[in-house]
């Protein structure tokens, strides 16, 4: 197989890939949980703290200006990365979870009333379920769940049938972390918009694996986390269409989000600052900007193509193991291989693979309803990144075979 990326070279950018675990080279296949960081990001963080660090937006002094320029520069990079119209549409948050909560509490609470409906799908991460449940408790709105089929794909007819005049918001995962499914989000947005319903996308998994263009998608909100995108943890992004964000009330109050405060009245700041109360994750945001630069230099389309090759290779090899069952077999899928082994619990698989230096996740992947649907308590999940190799896939497959052998 000719590979579409020079992985050997790319791997040199990631210092952690030289680690040994239990005396063996690390094989890091837990990228859906969090990705590793390239030197470009690590150097940026260090450089910020050593040369450019101060609080942002509030100092007349040089360092504060420097930090502010870098911080706002990162916002511009993110804007270009997802092709938003304006930098005002890029809100820095802690991560996907906070972004969903922000939309639920600001947009949702100001717009929804008892009897209104929010539509999600049966493959959501808990962070795209629980904030809506809280909102429903607060407002009397009702959470509706569009079903999936046994391959782990949304059943579009059923999804469309659930859209009605009570539906006030659709929130759907762009790519499932438990199943790998890439949802037909363009079609989802089209049908929802045809009924005047705004759509939020949980892009936590999609954004590291494909080029995302929010204007082309025409989504109303898009959320993602820096730490899954080779960036630092503690920083993430909520994209929202300016008209929607403008009309939304602030979520948290504090410094930076105001223009003028007296004890009688407070005037809120403009976008995006209205939603960024308090000192933000400054170095982390700048680090995210560096991660975006790094990924764009490689090219998201190249990354997507390479990861598809890896997934295909891994799936073919995995299916050669008779007792292995792949959970998540959507036709359109990202580089996530969820599986179970007959008679061997995923937790045991996880501990044993770790002994071989292989990091996978075992558990419900914060998607308990998905596990229930497939009738399994948990799955083992190998999730790939562009720095993984086919040799690492071989190590994984070999490890699985050994586990089957010792369990007898």
């Amino acid at each position, binding site marked *: 197989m000719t590979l579409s990326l020079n992985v050997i070279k790319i791997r040199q950018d990631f210092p952690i890939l030289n680690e040994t675990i239990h005396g063996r080279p690390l094989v890091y296949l837990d990228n859906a949980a969090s990705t590793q960081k390239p030197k470009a990001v690590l150097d940026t963080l260090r450089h910020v703290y050593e040369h450019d660090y101060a609080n942002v937006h509030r100092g007349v002094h040089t360092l504060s200006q420097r930090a502010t320029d870098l911080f706002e520069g990162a916002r511009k990079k993110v804007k270009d990365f997802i092709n938003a119209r304006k930098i005002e549409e890029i809100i820095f948050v802690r991560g996907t979870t906070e972004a969903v909560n922000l939309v639920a509490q600001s947009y949702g609470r100001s717009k929804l009333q008892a009897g209104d409906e929010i539509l999600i799908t049966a493959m959501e991460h808990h962070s795209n379920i629980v904030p809506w449940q809280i909102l429903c408790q607060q407002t009397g709105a009702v959470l509706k769940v569009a079903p999936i089929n046994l391959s782990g794909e949304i059943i579009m007819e059923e999804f469309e049938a659930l859209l009605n005049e009570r539906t006030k918001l659709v929130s759907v995962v762009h790519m499932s972390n438990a199943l790998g499914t890439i949802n037909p989000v363009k079609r989802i947005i089209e049908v929802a918009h045809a009924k005047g319903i705004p759509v939020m996308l949980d892009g936590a998994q999609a954004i590291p694996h494909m080029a995302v263009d929010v204007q082309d998608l025409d989504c109303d909100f898009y959320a993602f986390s820096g730490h899954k995108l080779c960036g630092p943890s503690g920083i993430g992004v909520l994209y929202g269409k300016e008209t929607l964000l403008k009309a939304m009330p602030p979520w948290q109050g504090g410094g930076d989000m105001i223009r003028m405060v007296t004890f009688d009245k407070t005037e809120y700041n403009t976008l995006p600052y209205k939603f960024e109360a308090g000192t933000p994750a400054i170095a982390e945001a700048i680090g995210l900007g560096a991660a975006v630069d790094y990924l764009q230099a490689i090219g998201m389309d190249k990354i997507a193509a390479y990861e598809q090759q890896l997934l295909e290779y891994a799936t073919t090899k995995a299916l050669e193991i008779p007792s292995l069952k792949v959970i998540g077999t959507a036709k359109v899928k990202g580089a996530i291989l969820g599986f179970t082994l007959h008679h061997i*619990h995923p937790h045991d698989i996880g*501990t044993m693979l770790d002994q071989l230096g292989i990091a996978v996740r075992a558990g*419900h992947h914060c998607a308990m309803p998905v596990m229930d649907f497939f009738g399994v*308590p948990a799955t083992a999940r190998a999730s790939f990144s562009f720095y993984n190799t086919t040799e690492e896939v071989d190590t994984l497959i070999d490890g699985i075979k050994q586990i089957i052998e010792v369990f007898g």
Partner: protein
Amino acid sequence: MFDEIRDLYQEVVFDHNRNPRNFRVMDDATRKIDGFNPLCGDRITLYVKVNDNVIEDVSFQGSGCAISTASASLMTEIVRGHTEEETHGLFELFHKIVTGEDTRTNFDELGKLAVLAGVRAYPARVKCATLAWHSLEAALKEDAETVSTE
């Protein structure tokens, strides 16, 4: 290949995982409780028959990893015939050893539970080894709600 991990996955563990003892529903149980480990989805239903402060019979049903299944199986064997106080004492000792709070290296006092002492080197798996025991503790307290190791 898996040499180092043999202190966790001993033959006895594999054996109890493959053929769990007392893996059955108990119709005349005096107490029944559901235990759940939300982290990994392990579920156990524990049946206990207590007569005059003595555990006459224990059985379980459920699904879990090898460590949690073997631990439940071994537990049902070891506590039968013991008083509630003795059982509680054994739970405390077992818990302290697997969490590493008790750092002894001689596990004679644990009897056949000693095969699970290796769990202490795998903090992520302690909850697997203690799920059945937490459930038993709750059952003996007649705390009928689902117990969770979280």
